[in-house]
C-alpha cells in the first residue's frame, strides 16, 4: 500500500460524512468485488451507519448501499470531504 498524502482509511470515516476514494489497497478477489461495485479512485462514498454491534458499516456508493467489515474498509484510502 503506497502512501497518499492527506488520505485516511475509509474505516475511520464518521457516520454521515462523505469522502472520495484515493486508493484501494486491497488485493485479489476482494479488490475485484470492490471495483465491480464501482468503488474506484475518485468515487464519492458516504458513510451511512454501523451495524448494531459496531461492525460492519454500511456505505452509500453510486446510490447503492454496501456493507463492509472494518478490516476491509481499513485498506481503502479516502480523502474526506
Amino acid at each position, binding site marked *: 500500500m503506497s502512501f497518499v498524502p492527506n488520505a485516511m482509511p475509509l474505516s475511520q470515516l464518521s457516520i454521515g460524512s462523505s469522502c472520495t476514494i484515493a486508493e484501494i489497497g486491497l488485493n485479489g478477489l*476482494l479488490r475485484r468485488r470492490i471495483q465491480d461495485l464501482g468503488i474506484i479512485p*475518485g468515487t464519492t462514498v458516504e458513510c451511512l451507519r454501523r451495524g448494531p*454491534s459496531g461492525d460492519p458499516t454500511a456505505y452509500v456508493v453510486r446510490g447503492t448501499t454496501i456493507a463492509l467489515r472494518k478490516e476491509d474498509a481499513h485498506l481503502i484510502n479516502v480523502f474526506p470531504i
Partner: protein
Amino acid sequence: MIRSTGDAFLHELNKDAETLRLSYGNSLGDKIIADIYKNAEQITKNVILIDNNKKNWTLKLDNYLTSKVFGYPFMLLVLGIILWITISGANIPSDILASALFGLQEVVSRGFLSLGAPAWLHGVLVLGVFNSVAWVVSVMLPPMAIFFPLFTLLEDLGYLPRVAFNLDNLFKKAKTCGKQSLTMCMGFGCNAAGVVACRIIDSPRERLIAILTNNFVPCNGRFPILIAIGTIFGVGALASQLQALAVTGIITGVIMIGVFVTFAVSWFLSRSVLKGEASSMVLELPPYRRPKIVSVVYRSIIDRTIFVLKRAVIVAAPAGGIIWIVANTYIGEISILNHLAGWLNPFAQTIGMDGYILLAFILGLPANEIVFPILIMSYISSGTMIELESLAELQMLFINHGWTWLTAANVMLFTLLHWPCGTTLITTRKETGSKKWTLAAFIIPTTVAFTVCFILTQTVRLLGLA
C-alpha cells in the same frame, strides 16, 4: 477426451493471462475499469431519474431495523411472529386434513376387505403406504403452505440482507462470513437448498463451515415434529388461546439453541480442522420493495411447498410400505422392527429416548418427514390399534409408551441436532466434491446430538427430576 484437452488448454491460457496481468500490477486493470465507469456515468446521467422518496423510506426503516436498540429484538420478533402465525394457523387445516384422509383410509380399508384382499396386501398398501402418506400430507402441508409464503414475503421485502448485516459481527467472531445467516434462512425451508445457497460465500473455508453447520437450522421436514411434540408436552395444560403462543415460545427457543450451536460449531471448526482468519465480506443492502403478493404466493406454493411435499410423499410412500413389512414380519415371536428396536433400546435409553424413537430417526434418513409416521406406526404395531385423529390421542399413545417431559425434550433436541437427511448429504457431496467432508457433515451433527441428549438426560436423572 476432447473436452479434457480443451479444459487443460483453457487452464494453461488462464494461467498465462494471470501471469501477464500480475506483471503489470493492478494498473492496467484499473485503467480499464476507470474507463468503463466513466462511460457508464455519462450514460446514467443522461437517462436515469432518481426517486428520492423511495430511498428515504429505506433509510427510515433501516434506522430501526438495523439500530443498536431495535436491531436484534426485531429479528427475534419477526421470527416469533412467523412461527406464531404458522403454528396457530396450521392447527385447524391440519385437523381437517387428518380427519378427511383417515376417514378415506377407513373407506379404502373396508373396500379392500370386502373385495377379499389378502391381509398382507391390505397391510402394506393401506396401513403402510396410505397411512404414511396421509400423515405426511396432513402434518406437513398446512405449516408449509403458511410458512413458505411468509418467508418468501420477507425475502421479497428485502429484510434478509439486514439480518446478515446485523449478525455479521457475531459470525466474524466465529471467523466465518455474515452471509452464513442467509444460508441458514434458506435452511429453514430445506437444508439441501441451504447447502446449495452456500455458494454465495466467497471464501472456500467459510463456505465449507456454512455447509457443515446448515443442518442445525430445523428444516420444514423437522418443524412439524417440533410443533407436535411442543404442543403435546409443553403446553397441554394451558388454555387453547395461550397454547399457540406458548408453543411459539418453545419453538423459538429450540431455534435459538440451533443458532447457538451453529455459532459454537463454526467457532470450533475455525480454530481446529478448518483453521483460518475471517476473510472479507461485501454485502449489498438493496432498498426495501413492496412485495408482489400474487407472485410470492405462487412462487412459494408451487416452487417450494409442492416441491417439498412431492419429495416427502415420494419418500414416504415406499418407506411406509417397507416399515409395515418390517413391523409385521416375525422372527420367532417378535417382529423384525421389535428386534431392531429392542437391540437399540439400551443405548437409546442413555440419551433419554427408547429403541423405537432412535430406530425411527435412523429409518428416517431418506427424509425427516417420515420420522414421525414411522414412530407412530411402530408404536401402534407393538400395541393396540387406535385411531389417531388428534394430538390428544397422540399424547395418549406416547404416554402409554413411557414418554415423560424429558423424552419429549430429548426428541426435540435430537430432531434439531441429529444427522442431515439423505438429500442434504447427497447435496453436500455434490457441493463439496469430497467424501471426507460429506462424512464430516454426518458425523459432526450426530456427535453433537448424542452428546447434548446424553448430558441432559444424565443430569436430569442424577438430579432426580424425571
